[in-house]
């Protein structure tokens, strides 16, 4: 067992989850997803006009290892809202279709939304947090 207190990667991931109300750990980037499941999850968040932080787990295998140890979830993508794991692509898709995701995010699902502050979601790299 690794001690989280002495594990900078795990701390960086935990901070990223705590500091970002909506954060997606994915393969690739929102602009260039490297996996169909990550792409679908990004498309759902974008269709809800939901700004989100994104972490590409591909550059360092340790990110995925620590993330899965932390979340107890084995696969990528993983969506966190308000510090809680929502799930992977299947769950996000189901919750989108049922309207629960829009409810959880506090956005109007499907309805045209007011133009948000058009600040692009800043891509986040765990490496930069270390």
């Amino acid at each position, binding site marked *: 067992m690794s001690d989280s207190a002495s594990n900078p990667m795990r701390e960086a991931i935990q901070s990223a989850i705590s500091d970002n109300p909506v954060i997606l750990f994915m393969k690739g980037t929102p602009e260039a997803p490297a996996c169909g*499941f990550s792409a679908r999850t990004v498309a759902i968040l974008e269709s809800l006009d939901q700004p989100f932080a994104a972490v590409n787990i591909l550059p360092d295998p340790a990110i995925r290892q620590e993330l899965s140890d932390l979340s107890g*979830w*084995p*696969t990528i993508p993983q969506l966190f809202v308000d510090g809680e794991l929502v*799930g992977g692509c*299947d*769950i996000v898709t189901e919750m989108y279709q049922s309207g629960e995701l829009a409810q959880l995010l506090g956005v109007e699902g499907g309805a045209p939304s007011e133009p948000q502050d058009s600040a692009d979601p800043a891509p986040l790299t765990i490496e930069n947090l270390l």
Partner: protein
Amino acid sequence: MAVSTEELKQRIEAGIPGTRAQVTGDGAHFEAVLEGPAFTGLSRIAQHKLVHDVFGTELGDRIHALSIKITPTEA
């Protein structure tokens, strides 16, 4: 060893008693449609974790991708 849809079906049904599984896939990407009483009353996360626990670290590794759709049924 290649993963077969039959292997996934049998392991899910053996690992989660009362569950019926339909599994389709191409050897790398699989989709499992599951129904059973074991899922009733659980959050989606907990439902999926029952399935994850059947395969442990094979998920995302030997089993490259497994999409899961779950319908809880009455016990």
